[in-house]
């Protein structure tokens, strides 16, 4: 019954390509990526909802500057959505919305 949805933006670059001052957008990072959030900045028109609202929702789920993040899982189609470890919680979100989260890479994954 699956209506396989063809992603319009399935050409996402591999992590690090769109780096801004050493930071990458969380929405473009691959599974296994670890880092620390350097900024949460939604751009108007980038998501479905107003940028300020998207920003608040992300913060309410713990995406604030300084938080540790790690991408744990991703979906099959368009590698979307992603499951992100944010400090001690796991949050699922779409890559499109995660694009508002800028992260500085390079943090060893927490010891198992």
């Amino acid at each position, binding site marked *: 019954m699956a209506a396989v949805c063809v992603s319009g933006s399935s050409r996402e670059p591999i992590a690090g390509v769109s780096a801004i001052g050493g930071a990458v957008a969380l929405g473009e990072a691959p599974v296994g990526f670890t880092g620390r959030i350097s900024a949460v900045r939604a751009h108007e028109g980038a998501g479905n909802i107003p940028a300020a609202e998207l920003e608040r929702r992300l913060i309410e789920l713990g995406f604030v500057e300084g938080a540790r993040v790690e991408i744990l899982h991703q979906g099959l*189609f368009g590698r979307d959505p992603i499951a992100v470890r944010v400090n*001690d919680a796991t949050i699922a979100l779409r890559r499109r919305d995660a694009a508002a989260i800028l992260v500085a890479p390079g943090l060893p994954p927490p010891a198992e």
Partner: protein
Amino acid sequence: MTDAALPARIALVGNPNCGKTALFNALTGSRQKVANYPGVTVERKAATAITPGGIAVQLLDLPGTYSLRARSPDEVITRDIVLGRFAGELPPQFLVCVADATNLRLALRFVLELKRVGQPMILALNMFDIARHRGIDIDLDQLSADLGVPVVPSVAVRRGGTNDLLARIDALIAGQVPPVPIGSGTWTEPSAAELRVAQREADRILAAAVRAPGRRDPTTWRIDRVLLHPVLGLVLLLAILFLMFQAVFSWAQLPMDLIKSGFSALAALADATLPAGWVASFVRDGVIAGLGSVIVFLPQILILFLFILLLEDCGYMARAAFLMDRIMGGAGLHGRAFIPLLSSFACAIPGIMATRVIDSRRDRLATILVAPLMTCSARIPVYTLIISAFVPARTVWGGFNLQGLVMFGLYTAGIAAALGVSWLLRRLLWRREPTDPFMLELPDYKRPRVPNVALGLWQRAKIFLRRAGTIIFSMMVVIWFLCSVPRPPEGAAADKPAIEYSFAARIGHAVEPLLRPVGFNWQIDVALIPGMAAREVAVASLGTVYSIQGTGTDSDQLGRTIAAQWSLATALSLLAWYVFAPQCASTLGIVKRETNSWGWMLFLFGYMLILAYGAAFVTYNTAVALGAG
């Protein structure tokens, strides 16, 4: 404004998945009253409990939220009750904020926000045993001092696990804490900057009071590596759903047969004891048949909800939404719509009830509106009758059974229509409204708790029987009335069935000109009316109008009769009609109840009727043009 005679009102608030409902169950047991808040379909769960100090308290379980910045209808309820703005509901005298002790970060920010409401509050650290087991060390005094609210540990799933909380509630009431006048709080909707500051403050408090080994739950990680694997995860999801689907069909069969034979026995008893006539007909065909046709759904509904509650309780439901989000999103549906739509293959009623797992009202509405398009089991008898009468049992294209292919085609048409309609709804009706971003927490896996699941199941059964039963049942009575009144006059021709004298027959004749363009004769039109009660009843009604005895056991004879009387075009047209037509009073009743709106129910009825008429019209005329008329 507080009356000493009234029990103290306490509201439970907290993040989703914090175990708040389990704690509520532990505090109140089975004394809960589940109803809806006036005007909305959000469930209101309230119960009275007696504290160890002998004080009666009224507990209210509010929908889970991360913030008082309400977005969904559930969250609006939480906000309005906490702020004392909810009309018809007395404001709570104090709050118990429930937090998952293993996952405090977001909860602490919410506590800081709740403090600004100005109500007295207790913070209950739930699942305290699991936190300790994982080596998370929480300094309760430090936490309490930093937050400025009393903090107590609680374990909802263990006897005595709520003693500390109850003692603290007693102390708070006995302490004669003067109730804070409503409106004295300073809560305003926080901006992004304020939220940031609050989260940083929460992080600082967390760092000072909690020492965690910084590991994720190894069990959850191991399970998720399999269950959230991009390919394997989808395969396993399908396997779980297949099992669920099988269970709904096969496990429910025996109890459904028992219920059916029970009601047949009741009908026979009514026949034997009541004098033939009005009363007997009403009791047998109206009351007993009407109740039976509702209660027969109960086993399917309970099995379905057993699966849903188990998957919800253990934490898998959020994962299913994660796996299906992209696939459902293509049709404008939310990831969580998948389970309700799949359930609708069994019956739209449990499917529509299962849409309660969808938070956003609009996503839920879209799912409710397309669920009846999924081919439910009640259509199968009608499909089978017509296909076996008209479609030759031939093998085509090397090994495919033609009858099976037609059946498959009808299922596919239903699925395609559901996806198409939801896509159109999104484009036409809700074009201006932004689609809700898909963001949800994937909680750690937990073992489902039998008391929680049993209580949930019991509440579903009660809701179904009491609320839906009244609406569905009254529609059944109306249909009985139309099909049996007026009765045949004295000395009427014995070979003419009684239904031909009824209002139903008059309506059938009256709508015949309308339905002639789609190839239906008046006999079909008459059968469509009792078919409103439940789709499969149409088969028995066709038997009645064609004066066939013993249709229940010998549908071959009915098949031969209609094969002789209808053209192929008429048969195909009726099939096309049945894919789309809103032919089920029970479904309409449940849509009315779940959307709390006559408007949406009529919209559903209208759009499905238009689709059915259009599909039948195109099918009939194409078939006639191809020489099948």
